[in-house]
């Protein structure tokens, strides 16, 4: 299991799902891919497909329409999987709190491992959040990061 456990920490593939954000956080997520931040240094790759994903990165508040989609996508991810909620909206609903169509944060629908606050969350914070998720995974597996 050793080599697989280490590899897990070195190759987190993410999928980015946008519930109903203002797109602010989404731009910041994409900024992580740019040469300035270059998350591929950590082996992070932005996949477009739950079947290839290890870490689900969710932005924006869950609304009545996206709740179903979010759940579906989460179910299609193979274990072990982590979920990161990026931005205030995805934590609590943020500025959209109490809107007629908004259910609230992502954890209303699926379990969340790491919350990254901010409006919008900065790329550094997002990268930090992914690393935190990995630390959590490492602790679960009992290996050092």
């Amino acid at each position, binding site marked *: *299991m050793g080599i697989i456990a280490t*590899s897990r920490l070195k*190759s987190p593939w993410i999928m980015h799902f946008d519930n109903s954000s203002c797109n602010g956080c989404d731009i910041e997520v994409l900024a992580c891919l740019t040469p300035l931040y270059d998350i591929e240094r950590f082996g992070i790759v932005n996949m477009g497909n739950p*079947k*290839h994903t290890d870490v689900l990165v969710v932005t924006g508040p869950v609304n009545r329409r996206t709740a179903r989609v979010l759940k579906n996508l989460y179910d299609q991810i193979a*274990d072990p999987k982590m979920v990161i909620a990026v931005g205030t909206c995805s934590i609590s609903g943020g500025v959209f709190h109490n809107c007629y169509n908004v259910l609230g944060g992502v954890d209303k629908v699926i379990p969340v491992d790491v919350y990254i606050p901010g409006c919008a969350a900065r790329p550094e914070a997002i990268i930090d959040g992914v690393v935190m998720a990995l630390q959590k995974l490492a602790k679960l597996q009992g290996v050092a990061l």
Partner: protein
Amino acid sequence: MNAWIIAIVTVIVAPFIGGFLAGIDRRITARLQGRFGPPILQPFYDFFKLLGKSKIAASRLQLMWIYAYLVLMITALLFLVLRLDILLMMFILGFAGVCFALGGFSSKSPYSHLGANRELMQMLAYEPVLLLLALGVYAQNGSFLISQIYASPTPLISRLWPIFIALLVILTIKLRKSPFDLATSHHAHQELIKGIMTEYSGPYYALIELTEWYEIVLLLGIVSLFVANPLWVGIVIALAAYLLELFVDNVTARMTVGWMVRFVWAVGITLCILNLIWFWVFAAIKGVS
């Protein structure tokens, strides 16, 4: 007995070479894009991580074909290292491609279906060139056996350089590089999802990665045949070709399927046929004199 040892060593060593090359690919690509890039061993991390994921699948049939893809790719590679018939090797490589496409067809997924259809179009484009390459080898050596390529004093490239250029075009398709990364891509995660590989996940996806590593070694091995004596020159040329492909990958954008077929047929097949015509005329002149 010797052949068995060569075969076993190949099966064990080839993935390491292929994975290492894939790692270099990602590093160089990152540098070309002004990034730092992942560690060289990143493909291996990805591979083992995928192995450790839980198994999920969309249908039983799609899994079956992926094993076939792997086994046939290894077989084609063994044909190369055991120096058997090059024409038959191309057919086996074609079989591997068909299995991969059938895997894509075996689930009711629009994305993998799209990828599988495109994979077949890619085969329509590159298969003639690979077969013509084999015919070119025969035209020069009078034999389809790879062992004869090694035995022959004149390197293939001296007379088959047009076919060599055509092979470089094909290499772009086979390595799934831009502008021909149509069926699936190492970069197009959003618009193609993952094309033909969409429905494979976890360990099954790892098998595809493994097959791709074998494929890299096989393809570069075919390139190296063009200067078989001394072998190290051939290997240097193959590595140079690989670098060229990376460069092409980063400076071009993906084209359409129709454009690909037209381009490869117009350039690749024409080059091959001109090359073979030259041989024919040459033989005719020699026969007359």
